């Protein structure tokens, strides 16, 4: 299983498309930095099936998104980020 991190806003459409194409069922996608804007409710993003979606809590709070996240996206704190890295066999940064 792979952990993907994405750190750009969804307006970077080519990066988001590459990232989503590279995700397999069972993978986890962690949205960090400006990537958390992908987690804003109401975004027209076709999330791949079977991929666990989460967003880094400090980046979510910084950008005022706490109460605006899409319901299918959980939050992870910094310790959770570390744990995700340990649980997955490889990590890919999309940036």
């Amino acid at each position, binding site marked *: 299983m792979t952990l993907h991190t994405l*750190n*750009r*806003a969804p*307006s970077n459409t080519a990066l988001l498309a590459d990232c989503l194409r590279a995700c397999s069922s069972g993978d986890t996608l962690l949205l960090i*930095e*400006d990537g958390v*804007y992908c987690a*804003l*409710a*109401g*975004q027209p993003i076709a999330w791949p099936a079977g991929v666990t979606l989460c967003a880094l*809590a*400090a*980046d979510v*709070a*910084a*950008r*005022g*998104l*706490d*109460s*605006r996240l899409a319901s299918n996206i959980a939050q992870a704190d910094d310790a959770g980020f570390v744990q995700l890295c340990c649980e997955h066999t490889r990590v890919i940064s999309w940036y």
Partner: protein
Amino acid sequence: MSTNKRFLIISRRPPYGSSHARDALDTALTTAVFEQPVSMLFLDDGVYQLLQAQQPAGIQQKNLGATLSALPMYDIDQLYVCDSALRSRGLGPDDCLLPVQLLDSNAIAQLIRNHDVVLSF
């Protein structure tokens, strides 16, 4: 001796991923301190700067939203937002921390023509 030029600051990046948004805001505040008339236009990902309830202490940054909310104190109250940039992100004027005027693309081109100096960040 005052020769006023009309300044337009265009801000089109998100608030924290880079220094662009902070640079745009500092430029606007400094221009206002020189008593030049300043307008700000938020385009593209720049509209994210206007979201309420930003709490960047956890990423060790200063609150850009708090500084933005001081713009009226600098007599910068001509604030414009690209309507489609806001709506395509699922946001509306009620999500913004300051009163803003929504513009379509014709109005944006007109706004640029009405200013003497335009700086883009």
